[in-house]
């Protein structure tokens, strides 16, 4: 990476930027620069994404036929467990916050770095250690508990390296906590002069909301993992009924974190999409304040809905009623955001560049994911749909259709800023289309499978489910190509891409006012903020842009 950029003609003073400020492994592995740490995350998170992706392909290939024929039942169970664990804890949760958030939070608020640069580096090492434990567990037999680690299966009956995998998740959790802490302090204390709360980009608002969840929710999963360890090692009767424990207690604790964790995955995506929609419509986000407050509302309400994962667990039907109602309420701020994004395009100047395609894809797919979410929050329907492929389809619409679409959109949008290089828009648009088509073909049939009654986590299934499963597998292969293409053209662009301008999209926002790639301390002079976010009218002179036409 260090050889990618030698001199940047756009850097005002002497051409140093964060990429050529020091070479060699040491200058990367001991860096305190939030931008370099973002690159470290980008590389490691991408590795986990492709590991999780290989698992996904194995799952889809196995499900091509009703009989379990490609893998053994035990192998299949380990494959889907490791798919879930890597994708949730080592890809989705760190993806946008730790890569784009790390890179952009200081730039967008006009700060030189995060509040605690050393802790930021520590976060990455914790993530790597957690990931190493989990990889070790994967190589030494894997785990067959599912990513949910339900007791007493995980404590008494599961095979494989349950404790090592759980330890990996436990360690990576601290990475999350520290990143959240860093963002909160940075956003509170390090905004440039004039950057008031309601002038902050919505990306910052959503990262603030996400950080609150990371900080308050993650300790609960850590404690839960310790409780599992205590039961296994010390025979404390916490979850095992034979020791006087309650297996359903685990589900309460697990979902108390893991439901808010869904918002750790989707809130940053919403922040990215707000940026993309504003930049590619050249307009302020419609209802800016409402969208900002909706992020906080989602973070708060998200802590009150965990019981909707447990409607058929035997929990009191009255408790289920309350959880159902609260789950309906958490849908409202998300719906409001969708309407506001859509309205932003109205009378905008809409560009057809790749990031915008991803943003529109996000809105469409997230809408379907959200609506099906309210469907399964409805008690009478969930009894039938719980633990079926409908659930699998629903959360992939939110996490893949939502989070990954936004992540890809964000990567294409900020790539020229991060690397100082351009990519080929032709291939980028092809891959955006492949991802959209492949995604829908993979996951839409699973809604139908779910209502037909196909349970999830089945290695073999009844023959009448085969046609829809074949469609799903076909879609997955298209999706895989859609994800491999960017890996190729992004790598290509780092070496051979043309130099990018400082503001190739003609966007407002502090990150576009510094050079591409930015200097080590982001700004040569601390910017002074005089306008609201996305105020294209008063900042019109900064726009000198041609969009992706300039990229190609």
């Amino acid at each position, binding site marked *: 990476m260090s050889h990618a950029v030698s001199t940047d003609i756009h850097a005002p003073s002497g051409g140093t930027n964060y990429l050529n400020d020091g070479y060699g492994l040491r200058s990367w592995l001991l860096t305190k620069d939030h931008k370099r740490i973002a690159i470290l995350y980008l590389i490691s998170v991408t590795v986990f994404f492709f590991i999780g992706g290989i698992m996904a392909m194995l799952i889809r290939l196995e499900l091509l036929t009703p009989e379990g024929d490609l893998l053994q039942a035990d192998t299949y169970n380990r494959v889907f467990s490791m798919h879930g664990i890597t994708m949730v804890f080592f890809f989705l949760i760190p993806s946008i916050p730790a890569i784009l958030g790390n890179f952009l939070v200081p730039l967008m608020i006009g700060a030189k770095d995060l509040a605690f640069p050393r802790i930021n580096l520590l976060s990455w090492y914790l993530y790597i250690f957690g990931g190493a434990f989990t990889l070790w567990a994967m190589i030494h037999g894997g785990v067959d508990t599912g990513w949910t680690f339900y007791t007493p299966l995980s404590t008494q009956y599961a095979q494989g390296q349950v404790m090592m995998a759980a330890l990996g998740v436990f360690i990576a959790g601290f990475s999350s906590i520290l990143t959240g802490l860093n963002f909160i302090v940075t956003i509170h204390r390090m905004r440039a002069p004039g950057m008031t709360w309601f002038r902050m980009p919505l990306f910052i608002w959503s990262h603030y909301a996400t950080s609150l969840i990371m900080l308050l929710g993650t300790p609960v999963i850590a404690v839960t993992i310790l409780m599992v360890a205590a039961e296994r090692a010390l025979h404390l009767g916490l979850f095992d009924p034979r020791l006087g424990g309650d297996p359903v207690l685990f589900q309460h604790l697990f979902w108390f974190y893991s439901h808010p964790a869904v918002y750790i995955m989707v809130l940053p995506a919403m922040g990215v999409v707000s940026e993309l929609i504003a930049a590619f419509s050249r307009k302020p986000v419609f209802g800016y304040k409402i969208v900002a407050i909706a992020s906080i509302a989602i973070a708060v309400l998200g802590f009150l809905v965990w019981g909707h994962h447990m*409607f058929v667990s035997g929990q009191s039907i009255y408790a289920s009623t309350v959880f159902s109602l609260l789950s309906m309420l958490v849908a409202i701020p998300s719906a409001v955001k969708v309407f506001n994004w859509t309205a932003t395009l109205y009378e905008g100047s809409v560009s057809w560049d790749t990031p915008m395609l991803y943003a529109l894809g996000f809105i469409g797919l997230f809408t379907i994911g959200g*609506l099906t979410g309210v469907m399964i929050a409805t008690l009478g329907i969930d009894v039938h749909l719980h633990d079926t492929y409908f659930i699998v389809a629903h959360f992939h619409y939110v996490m893949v259709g939502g989070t990954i679409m936004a992540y890809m959109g964000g990567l294409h949008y900020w790539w020229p800023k991060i690397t100082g290089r351009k990519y080929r828009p032709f291939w980028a648009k092809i891959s955006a289309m492949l991802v959209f088509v492949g995604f829908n073909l993979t996951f839409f049939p699973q809604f139908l499978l779910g209502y037909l009654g196909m349970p999830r986590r089945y290695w073999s299934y009844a023959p009448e489910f085969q046609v829809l499963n074949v469609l799903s597998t076909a879609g997955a292969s298209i999706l895989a190509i859609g994800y491999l293409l960017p890996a190729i053209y992004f790598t290509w662009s780092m070496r051979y891409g043309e130099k990018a301008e400082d503001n190739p999209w003609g966007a407002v926002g502090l990150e576009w006012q510094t050079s591409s790639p930015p200097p080590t301390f982001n700004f040569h002079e601390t910017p002074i903020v005089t306008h609201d976010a996305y105020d294209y009218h008063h900042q019109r002179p900064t726009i000198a842009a041609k969009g992706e036409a300039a990229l190609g």
Partner: protein
Amino acid sequence: MRSELQFFPEGASSLAGQVDALYLVWAAVSVFFSLLIAALLVFFFIKYKRRTEDEIGLEEREAPLLEIAWSVIPLIICLLMFVWGTRVFFDIYRPPSDAQEYFAVGKQWMWKFQHPEGVREINNLHVPVGQAIKVTMTSEDVIHSLYVPAFRTKQDAVPGRYTTLWFKATKPGTYHLFCAEYCGTEHSRMIGQLIALSPRDYEQWLSGSPAGKTPVASGAQLFQTFACDTCHRDAKDPRPPRAPQLAGLYGRDVTFADGGTAKADDTYLRESILNPAAKLVAGWQPIMPTFQGQVSEEQLAALLAYIKSLQGSAEQAAAGGNAAAADRGTL
């Protein structure tokens, strides 16, 4: 089993129609809003396509009425669907009083069923059409979930406690019976068939099956095998009782030594057999040994069926929680 392509499942229980209606209305609402958003996005995307390189969008406008409308309309839709969905849910989980009691145990990786007549089955369950059936279930190991898609209902079977599921089959046929909660290696093989028969065919099937003892009869026998009757003595026994009388106990409120009360239901009775000291009845000594690990889930179910069958006299039932202690006083 059918193998042709299906898009909508067969419904075969008294509640399937209600669940389908709820689902189809929600699906229609979802399709409407998804298409609305998609149509608006595509329309704006084309209509407002950037014309010149330095063009910018219109200045920000606020539209409070619009914001209120698109918050309140989804809220109203959600609340209406919540009320409807909750009513269906209560119907799904509240069995009618005339339901026949079946018993199920999940274990890695099979379902064990017992009919009220004593017939036992593994993985398959035969039921009569038109009769409400309540399945009380538990698990011997991990959490399982009993799922019959054609009946649109499922319930987790949780070790250490009882949960219940009820349904009324409406048409004869053979339906999938799945384990829906991931339970380890052979999870996807923990499947069977739910066979709904006309009442006459069901009677015939029952009479052709090896009739085991009824749960009540085997419970009565176990009550002696485990020597429960040496302390929990019959009311007619002239010797003084050493433990509360069980006749008429089921469903009554019980007062404990620590002042707490509870209703004597399946879960309470189960706990009192496995861990008697947990809730000691007021006025008695903690002399009962624990039966944890000595009695199987099926035996427990039989003991419970037997205890339920012991109907007390009217006076005993009226005397309430401390009836047993009061009895001791008179003898």
